[in-house]
């Protein structure tokens, strides 16, 4: 699925990360030190990086600075044993896209990494993204065109439906709040005002309902989360 670089000095954790991420289909390169990582990053193209902050000699934070000067768009998820607020803020300010505090569940790491990879592919590179779904009816979206397909059939979508769908797809498995949706919406032809003008929760419900109908029989469902928003989920086990 993706070409990943793991930089972690603890052998037990490095081995575990590498094995688990390989199991779900990623191709994984591991480094035990910042120096190793620098030479690998100069010679290879990666889709994402998992970086431990507590490295010997070149610290994770230094490596992050070094990396950001060269590869601004590369998704980086940092791992840290310290979870004080300063450390998190420092890491995110230095250019990390997400962080996880040790110890963590492997499923959590995979979910965060998956979201990072999806987000980096869709808007930044204008690439296309496919969600795993029932055979033959896979949902595929392309931000550049913009166009969505179900299997080989193009999906007819209004501007707002497209904005809603692409937001749900990039955040698949996570809850998207109503505010998030309204921020991305432009006024439809014939409507005045700026983004989200005059939209009631009923109006949003109408669009959700329409999208649900269009996604019927795809194994994908837009779940209504009480008081919190919507989540695109796979109904196939």
């Amino acid at each position, binding site marked *: 699925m993706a070409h990943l670089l793991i930089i972690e000095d603890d052998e037990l954790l490095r081995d575990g990360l590498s094995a688990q991420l390989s199991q779900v289909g990623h191709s994984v390169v591991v480094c035990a030190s910042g120096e190793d990582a620098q030479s690998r990053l100069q010679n290879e193209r990666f889709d994402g990086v998992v970086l431990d902050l507590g490295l010997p000699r070149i610290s994770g934070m230094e490596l992050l600075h070094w990396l950001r000067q060269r590869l601004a768009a590369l998704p980086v998820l940092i791992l840290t044993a310290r979870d*004080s607020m300063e450390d998190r803020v420092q890491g995110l300010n230095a250019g990390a896209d997400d962080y996880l505090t040790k*110890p963590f569940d492997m499923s959590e790491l995979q979910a965060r990494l998956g979201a990072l990879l999806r987000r980096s592919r869709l808007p930044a590179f204008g690439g296309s993204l496919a969600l795993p779904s029932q055979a033959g009816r896979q949902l595929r979206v392309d931000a550049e065109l913009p166009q969505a397909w179900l299997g080989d059939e193009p999906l007819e979508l209004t501007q707002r439906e497209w904005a809603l769908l692409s937001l749900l797809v990039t955040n698949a498995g996570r809850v998207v709040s109503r505010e998030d949706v309204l921020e991305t919406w432009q006024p439809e032809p014939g409507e005045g005002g700026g983004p989200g003008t005059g939209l009631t929760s009923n109006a949003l419900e109408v669009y959700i309902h329409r999208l649900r109908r269009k996604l019927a029989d795809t194994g994908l469902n837009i779940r209504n989360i*009480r*008081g*919190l928003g919507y989540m695109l989920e796979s109904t196939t086990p």
Partner: protein
Amino acid sequence: MRQAGHGLSLRRQLLLWLLLPQLVLFLVGGALAYRIALNYAEKAIDQSLTQTVRALARQVKPVGSGLLIDFPRAAQDIIEQDPKDRVSYMVSAPPGRFLLGNVQLPQPAANQPQPTSEVRLYNAQVQGKPMRLALLELDYGEPQSPQRMRVQVAQSRVVQERLTAELIADVLVPLLLLMALLSLLVYAGIARGLRPLQRLQAQLGTRRDATLSALAPIELTQAPQEVHALANAVNQLLAAVQRSLGQEKRFLNDAAHQLRTPLAGLISQTELALTESDAQALRERLTKVLAGAQRSAHLVHQLLALARNETEVKLEPLDLAALAREVARDWTPRAIQSGVDLGYDGVDHANVLGQATLLREALNNLIDNALSYAGSGCEVTLRVQASDGGVTLEVADTGPGLSVQDLPHAFERFWRASDQPGGCGLGLAIVAEVAHRHRASAQVLPNAPHGLRVLMRWSAAD
């Protein structure tokens, strides 16, 4: 009380501030006494010279256009009695032409007219010696040919200096003695006054080990009020530190014991797994190992959360409702997995003073608890309500809840309501700590018809 590198010692400061002004005052007083003595000596001499010059003038009587000088030997003897302190005199008429006297006295320097019958006093050098002179001029003779005579007497200024010296000796010597005595008293007083501080230092200075006995209260007897106040303040601090150290030790002790259990389970399960040959049985063992490791990880996380709570926090305005929804969204995938309907129901925005990391920790614990103990098919609802009375955050579940006897124990550390695996009995304790840090109250209530409600309440004053 030596304080190397921290400015002058208290003793030196006191000495400086007490003795230096005293010295200055004495010097000024001495100088003043000298001036006054000099002045009085001069006045005394001037008075005697004035009397002498008038007396001498009376002995010179004008007769027609001439002068009759009646200067008996006795009078001469009185004037010239002291050979060291001889009064010189001179009568001249017209002024400047020597008529009578024992020495040629100089004329006054200035040429201003000398009013008749008025004594003029001035200083001049006579035969190389400084002298004080008195001068008196008198008119005599016929009105058509007026004549003027001048009478001068002089006395050496050595007399004045001697007189001054005597006066000074009488005033300055007692003054100097007084100053020495005062300085001694001040020095002794400071040493005595600082003794309670030295005793305090001696009491505290020997406490070098970090045991609880080093935190015993200071005992001072016969110390002045200020030192007692200082000792009391230190004692209060010591007591607070002792209390908190005791709590920490108890907590650390509890924590270490709590960690032993999952670690013991881990070791035994791993040992068993290593001897297992059947793949299915090995898998079961490893599943238990994973659960044990996760339990340990959870406990460590909770302990760190409590430890973080112990430090000072900075409260900032934040939107509690938005934060609650954000945390709830993070938990949604797990809620769906556990078959729990997790939702939010409350105001859109509610501002409180808070610290986001700590509140997130409290929310995580509340939701985690609710999801774990409510079980599949239940509802967990977050509510943030704002009213005149303040802001309330609530996490309510429709699970089995707690019995009435158990409710009061809910916030105790390491207290657990069920033997459900994974819990460590710190979740609600963390919530209570976070509430305490925010000057908010924490409360557990039964939910109707069943379940549990945990509330954090910010009063309107905050």
